[in-house]
């Protein structure tokens, strides 16, 4: 071993840090429309290349091009724009509310609106999503009452979860929205279990699992792929690669040369990599995967390439670890702007209408926030009962807990 190389630890680094010029040259952006659309019953091996490509539908001019361009009507497109915009305005408002002390923490999904909104629009009633904390679009896309979301965020007297849960940890069974957990990744495996149940019962319902780029390192991600590849249940496995996990860039989770879509290759699961800021691409690919699932053809893994344009949460200051202007250099643009451009190109939308819609939605959000505020905010005004703390630990409260509740005097 005399003439051995001296070993050294390789620690991947992002392309730029505060003070540097943002650099996304490592992200290749192929032209829209060039990636082929395989049949839903294709063999995973036959589409391995699609994990290294990037499916895109909207080109730079705002036109929808290529085989993946979905057939959708104008109303659908307008709806897509509306719910994405609403999601963003909702986030803006709640971010402010947190700053004003109305809640303890808030998480925005700025820049990622297309993914949750378009996938939800591709799902059917009865399907179940297992989201992370950054998929509020799944509710908003269904016109879920914003006031109920805000009641939960404010932990107020009308919070359905009675203040027990962290803000934005919604649970909405009737809207196919599984209870959010703060523990990263766990719900990804659960989505596979839910899909297995649907298959066991001979049902036709599909599960949709969600996980972030950083969280793919968690064990649950692996377990999900193992079970999905073995039992082939009807599940869509979504990896939202927004480039960052708090201060840690995506290269720490995936090494600096692989990507997240190709994780599926080790499991013979069809795997696609998609422009996550392209509403039409998200919708089309989601449709494809959901149809596969519904036809008993099994799971699909999808990496949505996007960018977390805001801070990780209201507790985070991203200028500490990435260039302050990085978002502006993100090569896939902004999902709302891109769909808006498409609508304008199609001649069914204009700036004026957009301003009007923005104004209207802002007013809706504001009204919801005001109403929620009237039911209380965190620790102020009307609050959920203290005794609620003891409820729902078990179906029936056992004796020891009753004693404790008594001791607490509530």
């Amino acid at each position, binding site marked *: 071993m005399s003439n051995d190389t001296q070993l050294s630890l390789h620690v991947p680094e992002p392309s730029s840090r505060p003070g540097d010029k943002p650099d996304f040259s490592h992200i290749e952006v192929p032209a829209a429309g060039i990636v082929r659309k395989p049949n839903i019953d294709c063999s995973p091996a036959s589409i391995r290349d699609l994990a290294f490509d990037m499916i895109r539908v909207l080109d730079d001019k705002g036109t929808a091009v290529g085989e993946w361009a979905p057939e959708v009507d104008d109303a659908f497109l307008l709806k897509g724009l509306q719910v994405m915009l609403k999601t963003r305005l909702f986030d803006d408002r709640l971010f402010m509310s947190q700053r004003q002390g109305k809640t303890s923490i808030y998480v925005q999904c700025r820049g990622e609106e297309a993914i949750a909104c378009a996938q939800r629009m591709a799902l059917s009633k009865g399907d179940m999503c297992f989201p992370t904390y950054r998929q509020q679009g799944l509710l908003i896309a269904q016109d879920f009452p914003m006031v109920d979301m805000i009641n939960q965020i404010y932990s107020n007297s009308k919070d359905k979860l*009675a203040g027990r849960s962290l803000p934005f940890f919604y649970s909405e069974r009737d809207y196919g929205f599984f209870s959010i957990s703060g523990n990263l990744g766990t719900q990804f495996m659960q989505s596979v*279990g839910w899909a297995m149940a649907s298959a066991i019962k001979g049902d036709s319902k599909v599960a949709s699992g969600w996980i972030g780029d950083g969280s793919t390192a968690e*064990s649950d991600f692996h377990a999900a792929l193992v079970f999905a590849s*073995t039992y082939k249940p009807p599940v869509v496995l979504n990896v939202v690669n927004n480039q960052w996990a708090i201060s840690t860039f995506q290269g720490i989770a995936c090494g600096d040369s692989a990507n997240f879509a190709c994780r599926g290759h080790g499991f013979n699961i069809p795997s696609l990599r998609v422009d996550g800021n392209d509403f039409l691409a998200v919708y089309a690919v989601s449709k494809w995967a959901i149809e596969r699932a519904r036809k008993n053809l099994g799971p699909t893994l999808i990496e949505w390439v996007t960018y977390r344009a805001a801070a990780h949460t209201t507790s985070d200051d991203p200028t500490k670890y990435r260039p302050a202007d990085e978002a502006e250099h993100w090569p896939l643009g902004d999902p709302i702007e891109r769909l808006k451009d498409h609508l304008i190109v199609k001649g069914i939308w204009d700036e004026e209408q957009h301003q009007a819609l923005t104004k209207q939605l802002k007013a809706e959000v504001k009204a919801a926030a005001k109403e929620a505020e009237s039911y209380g905010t965190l620790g102020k005004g009307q609050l959920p009962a203290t005794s609620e703390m003891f409820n729902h630990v*078990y179906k029936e409260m056992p004796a020891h807990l009753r004693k404790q509740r008594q001791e607490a005097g509530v």
Partner: protein
Amino acid sequence: MSNREAETETKNMNMIEAIRDALDVKMAQDDNVVVFGEDVGYFGGVFRATEGLQAKYGKSRCFDAPISELGIIGAAIGMGAYGLRPVPEIQFADYILPAYDQIASEAARLRYRSSGEFIAPITIRAPTGGGIYGGQTHSQSPEALFTHVAGLKTVIPSNPYDAKGLLISSIEDDDPVIFLEPKRLYNGPFDGHHDKPVTPWSEHQASEVPEGHYTVPLGKAAIAREGTDVTILAYGTMVHVAKCAAEETGIDAEVIDLRTLLPLDEETIENSVKKTGRCIVVHEATKTSGFGAELIAVVQELCMYHLEAPIIRVTGWDTPYPHAQEWDYFPGPGRVGDALRKVMGE
């Protein structure tokens, strides 16, 4: 103590048979009940608890799982949220730890997090305890790791009758239940005398197990032996060890078989200790922060003024479970007897 639906025929069963029968009864009755885990499908489980179930109920209701305890429990949670009643098996309780996060952070809190909108009505079966020369990784008793977690119930049967009745109750319960089966009891009421042949279950009255459906309620202890001198709190294998120690020392101990550790039957404990004025606690798990600590805390809280001597714990030592020294580690009738004499002031 039992909720038998009617006077039914009984059948002589050992503990594994009783457990298998419980699964069979529930699978026949409710097609939301599904059973899976490592080697449980075609083969029927390394302890044969699921033998025949795949043949009877088909591969989508009883099947082999990949060796991922995390995945097994995570899948069960998802299935439970869908509406099934999964009964996953963990091959040995020692191997439940890779799933600990899914159990403690997820199954236990799902109802709380969602105001009961989603629940985890799952029963996790796992063989527990030592006495089979299984060394560090086939002998542990992790119950205290579960009793500390709000939202879980923890059950440990000590005989075939209870095993079946408690397992049916657990499966029917809408909350997640950790169902630990003392593997040393599968084939007989082992009393800790490892050097003597174990009595077969057939000679024990609790092996007369009713056919069909019946339940033993969760949260209710049983008095395994009435006595007046001292109360022994025990569960699982230690119930038999404690009874044996009482016989051998001639000390008239009342042996309480807790059956469910959480929710705990404080009433039965309180009544007994107030009657006897003395108490010892026996378990196989390591001593420090074991469930015995909780029992002592409860007893001193409820019965402090009735206690005539400090409560003594007889437990596994605070070491990993050794292989060759198994019987020096195992809290057998000798050690329990010593504690009895000590607590009696002899």
